[in-house]
């Protein structure tokens, strides 16, 4: 046990101030009243849905929670069910085999709700393309999307900026 505490003290606090966003965030906006967005400030529960990604975006989403980025400090946390989520974070081109599951997850999320599409595949099907028998479409072809974060995969900083942009309702969150 002593070694464990020594390691904690030696490691110290590694959390960094949030970096600047690259030019990767696209706010589709206008759908939700700012008043509703205000309600999510301070506490936001996210359900992550992989609609068919290659798992690259998932690795970076997991990284949002590491001690450097510490997503929790913004009051944002991941939850295991859409039933008590405020936001869906969706990755991947939506495959034919995931189309129904994504729609059901969206419907199971209580309103008002936000959707952030993460990664080039979620935005426009990426390397897999729309003209593909196995792909149902980009995320916005299947469910309404509020913010798109581009990148393959996007950096954790861009993803956090994207999540905050969805809550704040503007492209430049504080």
């Amino acid at each position, binding site marked *: 046990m002593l*070694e*464990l505490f020594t*390691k*904690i003290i030696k*490691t110290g606090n*590694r959390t960094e101030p949030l970096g600047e966003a690259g030019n990767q965030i696209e706010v589709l906006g206008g759908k939700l009243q700012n008043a509703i967005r205000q309600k999510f400030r301070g506490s936001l529960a996210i*359900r*992550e*849905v*992989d*609609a*068919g*990604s*290659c*798992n*690259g*975006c*998932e*690795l*970076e*989403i*997991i*990284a949002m*929670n*590491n*001690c*450097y980025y510490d997503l929790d400090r913004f009051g944002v946390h*991941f939850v*295991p*069910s*859409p039933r008590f989520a405020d936001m869906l974070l969706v990755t*991947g*081109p939506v*495959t*034919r*085999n*995931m189309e*129904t*599951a994504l729609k059901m*997850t969206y419907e199971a999320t209580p309103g008002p709700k936000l959707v952030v599409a993460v990664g080039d595949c979620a935005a426009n099907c*990426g*390397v*897999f*393309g729309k*003209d*593909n*028998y*196995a*792909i149902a479409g980009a995320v916005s072809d299947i469910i309404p999307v509020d913010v798109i974060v581009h990148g*393959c*995969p996007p*950096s954790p900083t861009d993803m956090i900026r994207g999540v905050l942009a969805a809550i704040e309702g503007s492209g430049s969150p504080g």
Partner: protein
Amino acid sequence: MIHEANTWFAERLSDHGIVTRYLEDHHPVEMSCLQIRRLDWTHAAEEARRQDMRFVSLWAAEAGAHDEEALYAYMAFAHLEHRHVLLRTDLNVDDPVLPDISRHYVAAVRMERSLQDMFGIRVEGLVDTRRWLKHEHWPEDAHPMRSSFAANTRMEPNAGEYAFIKAEGDGVYEYPVGPVHAGIIEPGHFRFHAVGEKILNMEERLGYAHKGIEKIFEGLTAIQGSRLAGHISGDSAVAHTWAFAQACENAAYLEVPERAVALRAILCERERMANHIGDIGGVCNDGGFAFMNVQMQRLREDMARAHQDMFGHRLLMDLIISGGVNCDLDANSQHRLSEQTQNLASEVEELRTIYADHPSMQERVIGSGPVSIEDAKSIGLLGYIGRASGVYADARVEEAYPPYNRLQVQIPQGTFGDVATRVWVRFEEIVESARLICNLLKDMPDGPVQTDFIAPEAGISGFDVIEGWRGEISAWVRFGQNGTIDRYAVRDPSEINWLGLELAVREVPVPDFPLNNKSFNCSYSGNDL
């Protein structure tokens, strides 16, 4: 280098009256491809089993433009001393029927089911004829890998339900999970049957991440294909792009510059370290040991940042291309990378003692989800999962492809095959990868990192295997007209290892399932393609 055809298996087959014909348009000759008669198909698999060969893969391909109209089925096996060998047979295009080999190699079942789905090949004698990648809502006559099926076909939805295995009896309950899981992971469905706390049976239903990858490969150049290969499974971008590049280079008889080969191995070992570090953290997180997870994810992030800095991508995507690599390291970066790798390895060792000294964690992992040596051999489990159960299958040793032919790779080998051993193997592999990286950096060959890729003529195929962090990836490519690919058949280790998970979790308490699942960490995307 003398290129001598591998005739060992052909001789074994001929002892049993199976006639083989050596195929000239396949490379490399050391991993030869033999044409056999369809009626010898099952018999040949039986002989492979008798010779203690490991099942590698099973796939099909329509004949290219260069050939007469035909549909081919392929299977590959590996022998510890006699390397890999491929067998091919031809099927009737209009009514393709292939004999079943799953009675000799259980791992072939899902691949045979995929052949039924994707090619409309009827596998004669297959016990489990349910659909696999092709979900019930696809039309009955949709066989996407046939040339008559256009890549952009919009399929009309169909009705139907998957017939899960049923369990009945007093106190048995059923528990469906997924495809949307509780954690931040890929989509898939698990159907549990449990009695009290214990799992009676867990059945996997995959295919949710099917993106038509093999179909998209058709018509790409080898350079375009590299980018797609990196997205077969994004956590294995290096290993998959390397396997693809190597198959293409074998087909084209292309020697890659030595410096590029060394860089590929450095990238691959770094990818192995990063994933092992992240997953050990994940296993500890599922065991309620948050400290280890926080520490491991911190180290993983340090690696990602170094990758961004030195190679331009946090997950090392798009760095390997057919003909070489897209990156280089100057003397200063080599020094920094070596130093960081050593520091990481020593921090991991320090954390390992804390992990080993934490009884509440050890109690969860020791003895949980064991896979016996017999079962592991019979399935042909790969990578750290096979090694935890004492199965010695590592392509870096079996095939000793460059640069591993000049590095003595040490393979850790367990016997218990439980979560604790799987974690132990991964700790060992982190240390070993760090050693390999430092050796490679110390001894970096000079010269260019790329050579022009000149595609072979139509009809030439190439095969190779690469040991990614999950285990052996097998890759077979055939070129068509104008230097484009007309078929790429890839087998991620997960296609085989998923079977091990089903077996491991029997009798395991339901709350320990996540620990087991994470200790396997099979790829969904790599399996579903």
